[in-house]
């Protein structure tokens, strides 16, 4: 990518005696996974366009511990959490945004009782807010004539009851938004959650991501929209499995907006 992104770190800000309005929690996937890094960049492009006064932890950020917790390792989770909380509290962080629903859930619901109290928002909620406030604009015609279906991430939807924000963003694109037969609270998991992303699945007769991708492909979409780096990987693999990668793109909501003309 060519555009220059402006990404201040908390340490830089602190050195200049400044306090950002919001911390962008990049997360491990967003920092290291090749596909997810593109989502991170797309979201930063939006933040820059909207002139959001944000910062990242950069090399000070560490795994939330969410995946360890779901795997049953409460020790490792709490060590990560307490370490992160110490850092976040030292920087007096008040508000956090993240592109990863797992981090979102963990920071929002599981950090408070360990001493980490922040207002945590998912990037789809944040983008929706920016659009509402008119802080970003994009050419609504960009996706005219496309069909977009949204796959609800479990940790945004069922886990935290956020079904509207991603849909409201998509509804502004002038694309046809088509719902899968199971969506919102009835959405099928992509198969990555609960630490499955990091292991081979148990013996069965099918992969979960293939099944979920079938749901998505039944809507004959041009774009499968996601709001989670892990869902993105799973759905992308599912689309490849179905040999549809030339017809169907899997894109994060942040990418859909960032790629739109005139953002």
């Amino acid at each position, binding site marked *: 990518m060519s555009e220059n992104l402006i990404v201040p770190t908390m340490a830089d800000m602190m050195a200049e005696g400044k306090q950002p309005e919001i911390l962008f929690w990049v997360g491990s996937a967003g920092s290291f996974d090749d596909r997810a890094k593109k989502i991170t960049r797309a979201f930063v492009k939006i933040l820059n366009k909207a002139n959001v006064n944000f910062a990242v932890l950069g090399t000070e950020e*560490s795994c939330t511990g969410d995946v360890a917790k779901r795997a049953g390792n409460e020790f490792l989770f709490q*060590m990560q959490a307490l370490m992160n909380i110490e850092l976040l509290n030292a920087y007096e962080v008040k508000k956090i945004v993240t592109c990863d629903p797992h981090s979102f859930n963990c920071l929002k619901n*599981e950090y408070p009782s360990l001493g980490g109290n922040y207002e945590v928002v998912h990037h789809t909620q944040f983008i929706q807010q920016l659009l509402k406030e008119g802080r970003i604009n994009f050419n609504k015609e960009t996706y005219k004539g496309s069909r977009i279906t949204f796959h609800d991430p479990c940790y945004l939807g069922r886990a935290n009851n956020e079904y509207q924000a991603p849909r409201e963003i998509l509804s502004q694109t002038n694309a046809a938004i088509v719902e899968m037969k199971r969506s919102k609270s009835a959405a099928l998991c992509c198969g990555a959650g*609960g630490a499955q992303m990091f292991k081979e699945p148990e013996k069965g007769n099918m992969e979960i991501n293939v*099944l979920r991708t079938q749901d998505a492909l039944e809507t004959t979409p041009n774009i499968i929209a996601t709001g989670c780096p892990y869902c993105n990987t799973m759905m992308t693999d599912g689309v490849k499995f179905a040999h549809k990668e030339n017809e169907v793109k899997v894109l994060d909501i942040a990418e859909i907006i960032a790629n739109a003309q005139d953002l």
Partner: protein
Amino acid sequence: MSFLDNILFALLLAAGIGYFTINVKKLIRNIKLGQDVDRTDNPSARWKNMTMVALGQSKMVKRPIAGFLHIVVYVGFVIINIEVIEIIIDGLFGTHRVLSFMGGFYDFLIGSFEILALLVLVTVIIFWIRRNVTKIGRFASADLDGKPRNDANYILYFEVVLMTLFLLMNAADFHLQNLGIGHYNQAGSFPISQYIAPVFNGMSEGLVVIIERTAWWLHIAGILVFLNYLYFSKHLHILLAFPNTFYADLNPKGKLNNLQSVTNEVKLMMDPSADPFAAPANPDAVPAKFGASDVQDLNWVQLLNAYSCTECGRCTSSCPANQTGKKLSPRKIMMDTRDRLEEVGRNIDLNKGVFVDDGKSLLNDYITPEELWACTTCNACVEECPINISPLSIIIDMRRYLVMEQSAAPMELNNMMSNIENNGAPWPYNQMDRLNWINE
């Protein structure tokens, strides 16, 4: 003579209620084997949940056909049982239709009961067909092989018998009322059983009285047997759905509890001023067990969940792991927990109130690690459950035991976790490279 009847009735009633009480006490004792957890916060939200979800069946109707049919049986069954009040008074005091003094309202009540009884009958037959003929996946599942499938059918047969006896009793009564015999004075309206009554035409009065009495006795005896069968059945949910929805977790579904015992240890480890050689505060204290390998390690709400489970399989039919052929079935997690809890309860009964180690546990003997590791923690089971049970919370507690007490995570997960320990990410990348994405 009629005196004997009343005594017999009182004995029957006492036996029925007595045995039920014994089992309820056992049930409460077993549930209390669970660990403590505080679920008394926010009572207004709890009452609301109970009213909406248990009384109002708001989650049942998510599957409209089954939901509608269930409401018919539920409403019918509950309302018809108002009649039991009258039956008990009549039985104890030798009266006949003692509440008939209410006149028009009484007629209305009996009439409604009859219509409901017919609706229940029809619905129960549809239920039977759904379970046994149409092979709906969640009912055909191997989870239900053996006793659970029979249990479900017994309940349906029970209802058919009870409703039939009720209508037969009314029909005979109606017939006798029309003949103006003895104490069979005109009371009630019989929109359904009036069509059954003609079968008694031509029968001797005495025979019809015997039929009426027999149906009456069998009906009340059947209700008492049914009441006592509940404890041994998934049908316990008709009672436990209420406390179960009341005590259900109110947090967002994504929130897992943080183990306090772990927090204490981690804080000690991270505190540079802590003296590693300091004697533990209470040297005799049993070190906390992390996670759950048996029912006693679960909390009492999880055990209440197990007793409340209706075995409907909505959870399993929405489970991504189960849909793709994995062994995991959240319904089976609940059924296993109940079966093991019952086994532990019987052990306690046999050993004069104390549990004697039987060399078995919920983990491995009932639930295998393969099932536990297949879960994606997606919460579909929790969302689907019509009475707010969380199979997921049991799965997580058992994973905790596997990982923290037995270091028995799948190898790839161990790699992932050592990556987090060493470089703060589940992948083997250096923490110092966390910002590289900016320039890529």
